[in-house]
């Protein structure tokens, strides 16, 4: 990242939270810099939301410091929180009030938010026309949009969104992506997005942090993650007798085999060697019905980093 040398907008050091005997977040430290979109990736129950809740002031960390825009969240609460905006879980509003009034009420709690700014963010998220309707009439996607409007209202230095694409239609997702990128790259906001969907992350984020079992396992740029994924290519070979094919390849022991099914098997092999591999099979008498490259191996990279398992609460 080009901005990594500047002051971090959000700095988390050694943050830990336990619930009873369960360690939800275990000594997590990372920095978030102005102008980047940081993805927080991890399976359900990995601790993403808990970390976000600690940053947003919902949960008090047991240990560690959280510094937002240079202010310690613990000792300088209001100044620190003035620089942050976001959505935790689903955006919840006062349902019987209009979106505009909801924003107006939220604006009162911040300094320097004008009426024009409210119109501006409503325009930005595409809700200008329905802003005077009660929020209870909104769809989930519209609620996400109004939540985003609220998060952006006071020009936060740090924008934190917890699974923001939930409930959004493709157009909404596209809009969200555009808004986030514009915020980060043009206005210099530090954006943090959590998700368990890799594809989304890939399109949105500059850097990705992977978390599982409350531990931050790795932080890398999206390109690094992609490269890691591309390196470990595998091919799916369709054959009438996969067992036989496996034996042939095992004898050779050069090509590791996995995911045996009734008519396919997956082979981990470099692009340069797939020709040799197929030839070997044909020579040894196995009938090849088809060869296909498995594209979605970003998941595998992810699984590899997280230790291969999806943990369930």
């Amino acid at each position: 990242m080009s901005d990594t040398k500047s002051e971090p907008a959000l700095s988390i050091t050694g943050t830990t939270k336990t619930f009873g005997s369960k360690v939800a977040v275990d000594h997590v430290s990372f920095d978030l810099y102005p102008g980047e979109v940081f993805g927080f990736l991890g399976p359900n129950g990995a601790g993403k939301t808990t970390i976000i809740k600690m940053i947003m002031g919902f949960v008090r960390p047991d240990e560690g410091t959280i510094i937002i825009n240079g202010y310690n969240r613990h000792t300088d609460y209001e100044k620190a929180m003035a620089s942050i905006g976001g959505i935790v879980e689903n955006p919840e509003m006062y349902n019987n009030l209009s979106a505009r009034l909801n924003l107006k009420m939220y604006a009162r709690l911040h300094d320097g938010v004008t009426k024009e700014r409210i119109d501006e963010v409503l325009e930005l998220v595409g809700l200008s026309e329905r802003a005077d309707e009660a929020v209870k009439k909104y769809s989930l996607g519209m609620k996400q949009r109004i939540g985003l409007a609220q998060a952006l209202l006071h020009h936060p230095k740090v924008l934190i969104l917890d699974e923001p694409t939930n409930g959004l239609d493709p157009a909404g997702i596209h809009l969200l992506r555009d808004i986030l990128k514009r915020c980060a790259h043009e206005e210099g906001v530090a954006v943090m997005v959590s998700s368990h969907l890799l594809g989304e992350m890939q399109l949105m984020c500059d850097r990705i942090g992977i978390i599982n079992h409350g531990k931050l396992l790795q932080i890398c740029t999206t390109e690094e993650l992609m490269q890691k994924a591309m390196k470990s290519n595998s091919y799916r070979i369709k054959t009438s007798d996969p067992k036989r094919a496996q034996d042939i390849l095992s004898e050779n022991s050069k090509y590791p085999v996995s995911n045996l099914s009734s008519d396919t098997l997956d082979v981990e092999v470099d692009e340069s060697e797939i020709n040799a591999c197929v030839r070997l099979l044909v020579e040894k008498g196995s009938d090849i019905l088809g060869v296909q490259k498995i594209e979605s191996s970003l998941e595998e990279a992810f699984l590899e980093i997280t230790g291969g398992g999806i943990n369930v609460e």
Partner: protein
Amino acid sequence: MNKVLALYINEMTKVSRKISVWILLLCMALTTFLGPRFFLRVTDTERYYEDTVISAVTKPDITKMRDSAREELGDPNQYVDHSTIRFTIQNEVFELFATYLNIDDSAISEYSTISCANSILSNYNFEAYPIEATYLSSSAYIGYVITFRDLCYLNSIPFDQRDNVWFQNYSRECDRLDYVRTALFSHDYGSFVKYLEMDGISNGLNSEVEAVRILSKIDPQGKFDSSESNNLLELISDYLQYKQLLSMNVDIGDTSNSYIPLTATRRVQLENSVKILEKQFEDHTYPSRATTISASAISFGMQTAQFFLVLLVIILAGSSISSEMATGSIKSLIIAPVKRWKIFLAKLLAIVTWIFSGSLVITLGASLSMGLKSGFSTLAPYYYVSGGHVHTIPYILFALLLFLANNIPLLVYVLFAYAISCNTKNTGVAVGVSTGLVLSNTITQVIIEAFSSSRWIDFLPMSNMYLTDKIFPYLRFNGFVSDVGSVISFKMPHSIPLSFSVTYLVILSLVLLLIAYDGFASSSFLVRRLSPTHKGARRSLFAPSPVSR
């Protein structure tokens, strides 16, 4: 503090958009406006004085009375032992059938009725002073009839039995008849008082005579009707009682027949009461009957409407935190750059504001209702003594303060509901339990009455809730009845010092506040998503067992 103000405005905006709030406020306004009128309609205001109000006596009535007595008696001469005696009082000749043998009491009564009626019919100016119209004429009329009959009895004593005592009695009754006759026929209070004085000396009823004497000074023309005079006489008798208690240096005990030593506080209170009454008697600003009725009707309207206020603020307090937790809208408050205690305080202030607004609506409604009905002059200011001088608080301010004083218990209930709401995060539980607590008042009252001789009951919250009569000790002189509780509190059989009750309630409120704040501040707002195994997540005092979703 700006943030608290902003949060407070938000809170008020939010609540004021709820239709249920306006419905309850409307109910309050309607009840408080219509309540007093309903009270007047269903309550027979004459009932208070029915013992002393005589039925209308008109000229035809008296004629009829005389005629029927004559008819019943038949020919009076049949009993007469040829000795109809005549006696003269101040140039008027009375005829009395005096000396009969074997005459019975009912016959004497009939004779006296006939004679008395004749006298009134020939001498009384019915047009100028209808007998039932004023206290003076009606009381003098009764006095005249009674004295006349007494004289008749005396005259029925045979001549040979008339001793010195008889002569003394006879002469006194003649004097009394003279006074009461002047009082009746000339509508003269002075003579009436003299008549009563003679009666009082013989019967030991000095204080009653004294009361009428004061009454005659306030109403020298004798213009007050019976109920107005009786209303005033009640005040005067209180006044005389206070003076008597002060002179004897005693106070009335828990039961009305026992006396206890007068405390310093009570002495001051009695002295001030005497001062206020003296001033009121002098200025004619004592609570008139109309004022007293207005005050009762207003009290009724306010107390009925208070029910809706209780409902409103308990619902608001019980839901203010928990409903936001339930809908998740609390998030936008938590994300905002405001500390939690500010959120807590702003919400509490908003609830207190609703108590005040409700009180204002109720007070104005009831006062307006009675003002329009019975005239705004019936709404009397509150009298109190400060620095040895009598001062007043304007009516509307007083009425508001009175209502707020009545609502002191409500503050405690609100804090209770708020504390439960903050800790259980459950609106239903908070509202239900708090309403139950309000309703349990009646049960507590029964318990307290059962243990009224024990002092430990003083330490129950309920025992210290009703402070109105302690804050406004001179309510009586404003037409209000102070010896009743309110919808949400009751008067203790014995008096607990105000300072004790106030200290008690302040401590209780602080404890409830702390419990509420502890519940609110320690909330991790994670309840909705995490597994139900993390008991340690919520370190609140009343944390409920986690419910799995």
